[in-house]
């Protein structure tokens, strides 16, 4: 049975604990800021162990789980929503797209063998033609084609009408000249 009151001991103990936490965090900050910390991180990143760990993680069900969770929690939509409303991001994207470096990079990508290979594989794949079939049979596309065709036919018919009417007028003028009849036109 203790004869010292509990409050008398607990208060200094809590203060001591907070002090110890502060010291630990300060030591961690110092370690992270030090050359030793940077060196340690480099070594960890360059280690065989980390490579194996990453390989194991990628081989395992982690990727599928991440993908499932990304879909479940609408991560992409949330990111897109957050980013699309950001004017700063829009400005940065605009600058990046307008920069000569981006243009050079795009030219290099487009001229690379990679693009040819990607196109070749895309054309060989059955999925592309399924998509093309889907698009070609979609009501919007067929309606647009029909509208264009009707519009074109109307245009051709209109031109034929105009030309036939001017041919009528010429023919009648000639006939009236031959018959020496006065022109019907004023």
């Amino acid at each position, binding site marked *: 049975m203790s004869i010292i009151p509990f409050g008398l001991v607990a208060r200094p103990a809590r203060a001591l604990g907070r002090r110890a936490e502060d010291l630990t965090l300060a030591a961690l900050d110092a370690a992270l800021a030090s050359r030793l910390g940077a060196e340690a991180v480099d070594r960890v990143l360059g280690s065989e162990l980390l490579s194996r760990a990453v390989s194991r993680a990628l081989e395992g069900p982690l990727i599928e789980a991440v993908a499932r969770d990304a879909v479940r929690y609408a991560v992409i939509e949330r990111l897109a929503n957050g980013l699309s409303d950001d004017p700063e991001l829009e400005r940065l994207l605009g600058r990046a797209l307008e920069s000569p470096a981006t243009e050079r990079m795009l030219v290099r990508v487009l001229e690379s063998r990679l693009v040819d290979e990607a196109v070749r594989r895309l054309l060989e794949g059955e999925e592309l033609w399924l998509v093309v079939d889907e698009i070609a049979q979609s009501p919007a596309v067929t309606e647009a084609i029909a509208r264009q065709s009707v519009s074109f036919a109307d245009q051709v*018919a209109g031109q*034929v*009408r105009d030309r*036939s*009417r001017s*041919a*009528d*007028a010429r*023919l*009648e003028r000639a*006939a*009236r000249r031959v*018959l020496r*009849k006065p022109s*019907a*036109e*004023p």
Partner: protein
Amino acid sequence: MTESSRYEGLVTRAIAFAIDAAIVDLIALLVGVTVGLALSILPIGDTATVVLVAAGGAAFLVWTLAYFAVFWSTTGQTPGSRLMQIRVLGENGERLKPRRAVLRFGALVLAALPLFAGFLTILVDARRRGLHDMLARTVVVRAPATAAPVELTLGVARPLDSHTPGTSPVHDWSGG
């Protein structure tokens, strides 16, 4: 627009007629080929063949007559006329009766017989009428796709449904 320009001329009408002729012939050809193929596997004697050919000729005449007569007496426009935006009406702007449409077709054949000379009057007549138009008392007028059927009154074309109730249109064809 001048008086004569409301009526359609020879070239426009010839194109419309050519389109109609193509439609009539194409359908007759398809039917003829189908019937011919069907009959080719049946044992038919020479006499029956002659009768069938005569029946086919008669059917073609009836089909051609029906094509023009039905379109002229219903809408006043065959498909070819619709494409060329022209319409056949009576001299007073009225729609043709079936009998008059048949008469016009007969007159059309008559006009074509003397090497199409019957159509030449279209070139000089003030209302651009061919011999068949004169015989059947019809005119061929311009009919834009969006416009209602026109009635010709006092030399002015106007929609059929624009009559003032209680009044009758007065027609003046003295220009012809």
